[in-house]
């Protein structure tokens, strides 16, 4: 019954998509052309490079080398053959000869790979008069020069430019020549002593044999490249029609036309989903077939020309067929995900913005094949994208593990179904169908188009956290490695600056987002008392956690020891004051300030505290920092002033600094602060005291709140 209506709708979508030349090009023409071109291009490029290297004559200056004449005549004997009938074959023979050292019998035939011309400084005198060899090399008039110092452990030195390809090859050329010279001297010496050269120089003879079949070796290489190619090609195939049937439909104004028809939203979205899936599958099909044909052609060509390398391409057939099957389901998944994202956009351009990050995630997922020691296992088989990539590697190396493949297939079926369900759910929402787009990521707008006094969206918060994470990881860690303690200050500065810059770009409402409000004295007092309670509570909780998480506690103390070498004022500044400002602006400011605008206050508070906990990147710290973060955010929520939480944060970190810096003195005065463990009674006391003091503190905050309300009311009545 459902299909009665989906049928014509599907037909309409298909006609619409297929008649769009751009889609057709992406779907059929591009894959058919791409891979053969890639293969031909790659082969051409490789041979062009080798050809070039063989044809170039590298200019080397050996003026200072006493045996220059001998080397030159040696080079004449071994000069590379020019224009021989089978260059490729010759080249491999040369390389093999040098590496396996069994070429003594056909010494005459051993040829060098690269051509050298022996240039003297006198020859260059005209243009480069008065220049040293090094200057001439830098001027690229020669590719390398050799110096000789009899007193040195290594008398010969080859000078070259690592930044120049030609110079690097010239270095190799000289090295090859010196090797030939070395061999010659060896033979002469041994002949003088009438010793058997082979016996002396090659007492141990060995060879390695690759027991993998040629197909397996080839498959391993292919398996690393192919997943990314296929995943990208499916994305390309699905992306364009996915945008077209969702955001494109909105942009063209045909969505409302569809809504006037006597069909349910489910039927509508299913017809769209089916149409895009068909396109994605066809596109995947063409990609895989074209890729298979191109690589197959390349290998059979290579096998022919190299000889002795026999490949049975037919043995790849099961791998290709199974890949096709899994790819079909993966295409469904990709389609549904792309549509889920694009549906929020109201125009092509916007949809492109939304889908690019998704595409990047998919690409990174497919790169997993390049990571060593990640293999298909029961766990990785359940991770979307990763599982397909790893499965392809397995398939192409002929290791069939049907149980795991089953999981991959099944999980892709499940993921695609889930994605379709989500898609149906989203499509049923009037807010999405009639809305003006998602707008949760305001950064995508140009600054000049930004509204004044914006509140950042949830997307902005996520983006900011990602940016901060990356900056702390790369810049912060880098700075700490370079500057030591100074790096900590850099990290703290980053935490403060990034949200401020982000807010500036959005033309955000600083006052509102960061809760910049001058606190009343009573509020500060309340915040301070609340902090004392929180500190006691945290102390109790960390004593409870110590036996559970002993190890991470130890690592903690180690980092502190480095800190303690700094003078007190530096510690107070970097460890207490800077985080109090920076982290508060970040977590209680940007994160909480943006979230509370979009959701219930309590949920925003919990998320902001959890993020604060996670940010400390340590399991033992998570629980305590979560509670600490929650109390900070609670105070901000109650007072509307971030300065209150800054005070709390400062006090908190200050106490940590003092306890660590003056550990012995503190131990005498307040032993509980430096203890490693505590008894149940002490813990209970700490927690109870903490809770009571917190109650008093929040009571003070409430008092100040009602007071200000009263005064406002009285103002009004007055």
């Amino acid at each position, binding site marked *: 019954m459902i299909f009665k209506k989906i049928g014509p709708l599907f037909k309409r979508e298909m*006609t619409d998509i297929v008649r769009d030349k751009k889609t057709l090009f992406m779907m059929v023409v591009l894959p058919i052309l791409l891979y053969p071109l890639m293969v031909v291009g790659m082969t051409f490029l490789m041979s062009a490079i080798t050809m070039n290297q063989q044809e170039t004559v590298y200019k080397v200056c050996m003026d200072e080398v006493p045996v220059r004449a001998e080397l030159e005549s040696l080079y004449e004997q071994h000069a590379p053959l020019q224009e021989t009938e089978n260059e490729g074959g010759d080249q491999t023979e040369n390389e093999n000869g040098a590496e396996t050292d069994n070429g003594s019998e056909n010494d005459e035939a051993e040829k060098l790979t690269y051509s050298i011309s022996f240039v003297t400084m006198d020859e260059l005198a005209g243009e480069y008069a008065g220049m040293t060899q090094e200057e001439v090399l830098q001027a690229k008039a020669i590719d390398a020069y050799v110096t000789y110092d009899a007193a040195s452990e290594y008398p010969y030195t080859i000078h070259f430019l690592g930044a120049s390809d030609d110079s690097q090859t010239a270095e190799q050329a000289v090295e090859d020549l010196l090797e030939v010279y070395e061999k010659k001297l060896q033979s002469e010496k041994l002949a003088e002593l009438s010793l058997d050269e082979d016996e002396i120089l090659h007492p141990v003879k060995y060879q390695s044999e690759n027991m993998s079949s040629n197909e397996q070796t080839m498959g391993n290489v292919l398996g690393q490249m192919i997943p990314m190619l296929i995943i990208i090609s499916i994305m390309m195939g699905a992306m364009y029609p996915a945008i077209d049937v969702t955001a494109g439909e909105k942009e063209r*104004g*045909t969505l409302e036309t569809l809504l006037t028809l006597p069909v349910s939203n489910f039927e509508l979205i299913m017809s769209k989903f089916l149409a895009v899936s068909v396109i994605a599958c066809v596109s995947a099909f063409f990609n895989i077939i074209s890729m298979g044909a191109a690589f197959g052609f390349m290998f059979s060509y290579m096998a022919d020309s190299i000889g002795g390398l026999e490949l049975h391409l037919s043995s790849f057939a099961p791998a290709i067929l199974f890949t096709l099957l899994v790819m079909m389901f993966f295409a469904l998944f990709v389609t549904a995900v792309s549509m889920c994202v694009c549906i929020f956009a109201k125009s092509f351009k916007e949809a492109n913005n939304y889908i690019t990050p998704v595409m990047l995630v998919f690409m990174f997922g497919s790169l997993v094949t390049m990571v060593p020691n990640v293999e298909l296992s029961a766990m990785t088989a359940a991770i979307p994208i990763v599982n397909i990539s790893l499965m392809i590697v397995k398939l192409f190396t002929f290791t069939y593990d049907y149980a795991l493949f089953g999981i991959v297939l099944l999980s892709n079926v499940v993921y695609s179904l889930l994605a379709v369900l989500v898609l149906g759910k989203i499509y049923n929402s009037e807010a999405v169908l009639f809305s003006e787009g998602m707008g949760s990521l305001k950064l995508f707008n140009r600054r000049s188009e930004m509204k004044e006094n914006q509140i950042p969206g949830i997307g902005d918060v996520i983006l900011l956290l990602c940016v901060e994470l990356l900056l702390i990881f790369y810049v912060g860690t880098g700075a700490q490695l370079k500057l030591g303690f100074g790096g900590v200050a850099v990290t703290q500065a980053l935490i403060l600056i990034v949200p401020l810059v982000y807010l500036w770009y959005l033309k955000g409402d600083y006052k509102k987002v960061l809760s910049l409000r001058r606190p009343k004295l009573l509020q500060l007092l309340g915040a301070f008392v609340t902090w004392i309670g929180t500190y006691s509570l945290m102390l109790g909780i960390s004593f409870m956690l110590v036996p559970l998480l002993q190890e991470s506690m130890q690592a903690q103390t180690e980092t502190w020891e480095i800190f303690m070498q700094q003078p007190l004022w530096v510690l107070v500044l970097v460890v207490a004051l800077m985080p109090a400002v920076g982290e508060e602006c970040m977590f209680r400011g940007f994160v909480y300030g943006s979230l509370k605008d979009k959701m219930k206050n309590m949920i925003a508070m919990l998320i902001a505290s959890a993020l604060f906990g996670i940010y400390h990147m340590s399991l033992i710290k998570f629980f305590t920092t979560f509670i600490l973060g929650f109390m900070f955010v609670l105070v901000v929520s109650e007072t509307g002033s971030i300065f209150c939480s800054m005070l709390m944060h400062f006090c908190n970190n200050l106490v940590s600094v003092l306890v660590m810096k003056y550990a012995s003195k503190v131990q005498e005065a307040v032993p509980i602060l430096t203890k490693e463990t505590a008894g149940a009674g002490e813990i209970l006391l700490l927690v109870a005291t903490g809770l009571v003091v917190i109650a008093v503190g929040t009571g003070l905050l409430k008092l100040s709140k009602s007071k200000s309300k009263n005064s406002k009311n009285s103002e009004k009545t007055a």
Partner: protein
Amino acid sequence: MITAEHLSKQFTRDIMAKEQQSSDHQNKQKRKKNISKKEEFFAVDDISFTVEKGEIVGILGPNGAGKTTLLRMLGTLMEPTKGRVIMTAEDGSIMEDPIAIKQNIGYLSGNTKLFRRISTREMLQMLGEIYGMSKEETEERIGQICSVLDMGDFIDNRIERLSTGQTQRASIARCLIHSPQLYIFDEPTLGLDIISADAIVSFMKQQKEEGKTVLYSTHYLEEAQFLCDRILMIYKGKIVAQGSPAKLMTDTGSENLRDAFHAIMKGVDENDF
């Protein structure tokens, strides 16, 4: 016959704009009040009325009055927050299911554009299938519509290649294919040239003569005065006046519908503040 029973539609809107306005006034007290960021409001607020068979009913109101939302709910494109839409078929049976109602409605608005990459004939064939018509039935109907709307020249051309007037005729053909009982038109003549606009007006008249019902919104008061049997004036989601054009004019002592409209809107605004 279609009946709206206590129809209401609630939306959420950002009131950032409002906040800015008040800050322009440098009125700090007011600005603080407006700081809550989202506001829920009724675009359509408890509207009830019935449109009888063979009637042309015009819906008038300034921009943002809720005309489009009201028509979308009547066309069951949108679900009402409160209330319901009931349609009575010719045989007296009552329909409430959106899909059944859509089956009997021809809905046209500025937002219902046509699919560009198919021809008018292909579109009509697809619609016939969706409306559950047989192939022969569809072909016969396409033949009729084609001659009525004079579409022979371009019916097989892709819609993206049609002129504005041709596209408008194709749009009307879209609403006609399933011979609906009721037409809902949201500002159908907006932005059209005189010839195309007149074609639509005469089409509506002709449908009335055939016993069909037409419900439409417009900003062209002269057109409404001459065409409508009954007018509903809505403002801020509520009906502020209704009746035949003649009644509205006599009630307000105006000579034409335009003056009556102004008089009514002015009266409402004064009561409001």
